[in-house]
């Protein structure tokens, strides 16, 4: 049996109310509610890593990363993700891009790879932080987010029963190599194209599995235009109650992460025997029919969507929302590092390795040749440090240069031993306490010399995130 063995989503903690965006342009919201939004230190890669960590896996055979907004256009983003997960070299990595269908394309590729027996377990992660023109409806429709799936043969919670793809060079959203922002062709004609293309993919899957639309428990239709989603479902032959909720009023359209995000949402509520029809759309369509297995009842979602939605931090203004998105477009004055330095640094700063002393047991960061406590030189071994911890002490620093002061800095004792000095992000300074539980999160620290400088920060651990209730 091949299928989904795990699923997780990550929504950035920041939100902005659509009325704030609309008001900044002197208009009315085009949609109710709010959208998710990255902080200044986040991008598609950092969101993706959070989603991967949400799977709670200790090992995997590969990482497939799908995004239309990956931070590196030349450098394998998935390889950086694999390093941040401290995975060994002998794994499969690949980036998928250039289409809103990239998420499901990556999923298809992972199903293939597992099917031929090359790997036992592939992580597919999709994330997007798309940019729309200020004042466009898309600026309000879009959101930021990530979703990850584990694809394998063991402990399958949703078996992939049938799948189909169609290709169609249809114009709906495009972005050229020189564009920072999406050009939208959203209109009633676009929705007609969506229905036509999606219908072909769905028809092939239903035909292959001998099912009628009415026999599908849940259909996941990634929204293209919030105004027309329900109508599209009806045109495709589905009743409203079959259609997966789209979270447009709380999240927005999160690019190529949308299909996997909505699949994770569907799996959070799925029962054994449910048939879930996943559609990915973009210059064609993918359709995958899943059948939920009894194992779904034992599957624990570490940080459910409802909990993540509850934890939002609201940007106080439209200007803050835009500053967060644009900060690193205008700031590239960070340190210029050599690749000679980086090669050594990645082991500690990205893989987050420390040293454990075989004599006295002390775990130390960064890796050391001589034990800080017992001075042993002979029994030290490199270890991967824990990614959760507790604040030993902290400060809220207004002097630290930051696009959004103040900066919370914390000394964190991590699970399993070792102490780190980290900036805390996604936090109201008044929330911070000695003893509070945090999770490590890779973020952009700076940019310069052709690189984004990623390093770990910490963030408050949510209630369902494995920690205590926050504030």
């Amino acid at each position: 049996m091949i299928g989904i063995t795990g699923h997780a989503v990550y929504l950035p903690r920041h939100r902005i109310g659509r009325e704030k965006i609309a008001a900044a342009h002197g208009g009315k919201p085009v949609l109710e509610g709010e959208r998710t939004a990255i902080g200044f230190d986040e991008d598609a890669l950092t969101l993706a890593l959070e989603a991967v960590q949400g799977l709670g896996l200790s090992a995997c055979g590969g990482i497939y990363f799908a995004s239309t907004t990956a931070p590196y256009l030349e450098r394998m983003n998935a390889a950086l993700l694999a390093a941040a997960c401290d995975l060994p070299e002998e794994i499969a990595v690949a980036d998928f891009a250039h289409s809103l269908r990239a998420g499901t394309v990556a999923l298809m590729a992972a199903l293939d790879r597992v099917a031929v027996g090359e790997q036992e377990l592939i992580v597919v992660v999709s994330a997007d932080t798309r940019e729309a023109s200020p004042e466009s409806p898309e600026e309000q429709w879009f959101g930021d987010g990530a979703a990850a799936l584990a694809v394998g043969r063991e402990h399958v919670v949703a078996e992939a029963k049938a799948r189909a793809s169609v290709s169609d060079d249809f114009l709906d959203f495009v972005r050229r190599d020189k564009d920072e922002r999406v050009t939208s062709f959203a209109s009633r004609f676009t929705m007609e194209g969506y229905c036509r293309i999606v219908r072909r993919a769905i028809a092939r899957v239903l035909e292959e599995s001998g099912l009628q639309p009415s026999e599908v428990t849940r259909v996941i239709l990634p929204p293209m235009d919030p105004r027309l989603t329900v109508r599209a479902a009806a045109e495709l032959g589905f009743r409203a109650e079959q259609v997966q909720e789209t979270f447009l009023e709380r999240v927005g359209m999160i690019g190529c992460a949308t299909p996997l995000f909505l699949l994770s949402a569907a799996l959070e509520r799925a029962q054994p025997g449910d048939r879930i029809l996943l559609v990915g759309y973009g210059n064609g369509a993918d359709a995958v029919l899943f059948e939920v297995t009894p194992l779904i009842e034992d599957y624990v979602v570490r940080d459910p969507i409802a909990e993540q939605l509850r934890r939002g931090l609201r940007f106080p203004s439209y200007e803050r929302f835009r500053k967060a998105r644009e900060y690193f477009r205008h700031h590239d004055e960070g340190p210029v590092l050599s690749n000679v330095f980086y090669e050594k640094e990645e082991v500690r700063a990205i893989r987050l390795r420390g040293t454990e002393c075989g004599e006295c047991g002390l775990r130390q960061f960064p890796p050391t040749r001589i034990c800080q406590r017992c001075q042993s030189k002979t029994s030290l071994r490199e270890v991967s440090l824990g990614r959760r911890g507790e604040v030993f002490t902290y400060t809220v620093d207004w002097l630290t240069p930051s696009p959004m002061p103040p900066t919370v800095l914390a000394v964190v004792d991590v699970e399993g031993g070792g102490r780190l000095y980290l900036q805390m992000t996604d936090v109201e300074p008044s929330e911070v306490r000695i003893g509070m539980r945090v999770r490590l999160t890779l973020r952009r620290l700076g940019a310069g010399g052709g690189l984004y400088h990623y390093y770990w920060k910490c963030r408050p651990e949510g209630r369902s995130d494995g920690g205590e209730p926050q504030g």
Partner: protein
Amino acid sequence: MAESLKDKVAIIGIGCTKFGELHDKSLSELMAEAAFAAYEDAGIEPERVEAAWLGTFSPGFGGGKASVTLADALRLYGKPITRVENYCATGTDAFRNACLAVAAGVYEVVLVVGAEKLRDRPVRGLQREGTHPYLEAGATPPGLFALAANRYFHRFGGDRRTLAKVAVKNHHNGALNPKAHFRMEVSEEQVLAAPLVAYPFGLYDCCPTTDGAAAVVICRADRARQFREDPIYVKGIGLAVETGWPFFDPTFEYIGFPATVAAAAEAYRMAGIRNPVREISVAEVHDCFTWTEISNYEDLGFCKKGEGRYFIEEGRSALAGDLPVNPSGGLKSFGHPIGASGVRMLTEIVLQLRGQAGARQVKNAELGLVHNLGGPGSVACVVVLGR
């Protein structure tokens, strides 16, 4: 047992510029002003100096990090000059190295200059150099000490009101000192109402960024009376270096600084001090932030760990207290040009021991202490001086 420096070296001349925002002065002008004041005080001509030590954290443009900075400022050529940099303990460590050379009998008369021109630098606060691009990103001096202050409060109690008392005392002392950067009293309410810099430190909990220079002339103790009637003798010196990254040390308690404890132990051993709070008459300690002074009381053995807040609250460190601390106004009020500070603190203790400290004179000053603390509590130097 290691040998002691006690009574082997004497300070025979001191010089100190006005401290403050000296926008119209250059680093070399400040060094020359301090050095020539020290020559005059010692009653010597510049040629009498056989060697010099320069303490600067950041010499600025021209000369790089080499000792030519001092040679060119003083036109002191053809002699051994060494530049020392050891975080905020730079000044006292320059002095310590000079003392070792004199005690070894290599030189008779040596000049020590500490100088810094922080206001020429382009950023707010103290710009840290050579820091790691990732591992300590975001660290600022107040932020690094605030980590300790918050843990200390968590462990022993106390709050911003406790800290404010240190600022009020040191501003009071600074107001009495003509060379201090700030010559103004502040009230506890003013301190508490100031903008936050790094919680729990507000603006008045932080020393300023200051320009200034100070110099001392030292000589072999057995020749000191050839120069003046009232030389001040070095009784003991200790320097200790701990980790520069305490925030990565899982065993670090963050309630004080072992570097100070170790440096004080060494200085007290040399000086034969067993009960510092009773034997020391006056102290200049490193109050880069108000909490640091409270921790220093404890780490220097003036009181037990956790009881520093009572030392300030009960007025024991006030000018009229039983161990006046920072009669000069301290770094808080006199100002903190990094490399200059340690040497400047030595000049204050010399004035106190000579009885020349004017309105801020401490009564019956017999034995004085100078303490520098550098980095995130990483480097400490303690000097004990006596008549």
